[in-house]
């Protein structure tokens, strides 16, 4: 049974996967076990995305199925067994840039992969990142920017985090259309991701869940 959910979800067979979950819940199975299988399935999805067997819409589709599974399982969980969040992430598109779709996809994928995400939106001033890091205590920060003009803004945001004395407490990832290792060095970020899956992998690694 367990293998079925893993392979069915990894194969992105939404209705079948949800039917399996329903059956296992009706049979009184421990909800956390179901979520553990869902997590294994997502690992397979990640591998298939990395090998180009899946492309971005498949990845987001898998996230939507996982969200549906989580929504089914959650009400059956006892308070003690509530789903533990993997970690906290402050995320936003940096000041001067208003592109949101890439940011929204990464936020969604982080969320369904168990992170508590503070989505600050687009055109976010550096100080707003600083305030949210202080307030939330999030150890991970994601800076998104689609155009080359975002690079200076990313650099200024990281400098503001540094000036606030928070740089040693957080890992910063950057992402967007034009990002490379050169840009990472220029901005002072710890790492960069070329797609949503890379962002999730980095966050998992930094949260010790990878």
């Amino acid at each position, binding site marked *: 049974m367990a293998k079925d959910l893993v392979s069915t979800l990894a194969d992105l067979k939404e209705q079948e996967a949800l039917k399996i979950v329903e059956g296992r819940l009706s049979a009184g199975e421990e909800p956390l076990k179901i979520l553990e299988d869902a997590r294994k399935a997502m690992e397979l999805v990640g591998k298939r995305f990395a090998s180009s067997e899946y492309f971005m819409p498949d990845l*987001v589709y898998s996230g939507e199925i996982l969200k549906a599974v989580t929504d089914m399982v959650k009400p059956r969980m006892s308070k003690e067994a509530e789903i533990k969040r993997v970690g906290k992430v402050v995320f936003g598109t940096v000041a001067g840039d208003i592109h949101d779709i890439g940011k929204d996809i990464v936020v969604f994928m982080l969320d369904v992969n168990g992170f508590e995400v503070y989505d600050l939106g687009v055109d976010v001033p550096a100080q707003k990142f600083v305030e949210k890091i202080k307030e939330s205590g999030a150890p991970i920060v994601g800076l998104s920017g689609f155009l080359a003009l975002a690079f200076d803004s990313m650099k200024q945001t990281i400098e503001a985090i540094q000036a606030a004395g928070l740089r040693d407490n957080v890992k910063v990832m950057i992402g967007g259309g034009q990002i490379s290792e050169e840009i990472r060095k220029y901005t002072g970020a710890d790492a960069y991701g070329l797609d949503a899956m890379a962002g999730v992998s980095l966050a998992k690694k930094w949260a010790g869940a990878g």
Partner: protein
Amino acid sequence: MPAIRDIPLSLKTGEVLRRQGFRGHSKIRPEIKNLILELLATVENTHLLEPAVAYEYYQVTGMSSGQVSLEGDKAIHGSLLPTIFPEAKELAALVCTIGPKLEKQVTDYSKSGETLRGMILDGIGSAAVDMLAPEACRLIASRATSHGHQTSSPVSPGWPGLPLTEQWNLFELVNTQEIGVSLTASGIMVPRKSVSMVIGIGPQMATWTRAEVCTRCSLRKTCPYRIQA
């Protein structure tokens, strides 16, 4: 200053897939394909695309290594234009947009947790702009041909040798208010699904394909939207 609307755009699934980062070796899941087809139908039935092009012609009055001088004491700065079309007699400045409706729908989908729909609709918007730009170029080419001239392929601010700061300059050359396109303080076009371009016009103009542009781009190895020859 001329502006045209009601440009028919016939969107194809292949272009939409490219804008989703599809590279040809992935399988297209029926659910994804059906969603693309459904959203393409939605775009058409609810008139989410409002394609419009504003453009203007300028006589070239001078050319140096760092700028093209235009009639009316105007100029476009940077080394790119003098390099790629030194013999241009005239220059067309254009701004094209698909309007704000599609972007609003993308935001609504994202806000309501329909991330996949939002993502695919956003890709449809990008594909629509990709299709609109060549239509606008054809319009310029048609006039040039009737004058016995050729047109260059288009270039846009942000290309090496044509700084992004020239975006403001270009917006001075075209009446973008006519089509509802403006610039943010940082130079991003709103609606975002817009494109600005400059085309050289003259007896002999250089042309290049979109795939050739991709091969010269610094992101040619990693860009998920690159076009392969």
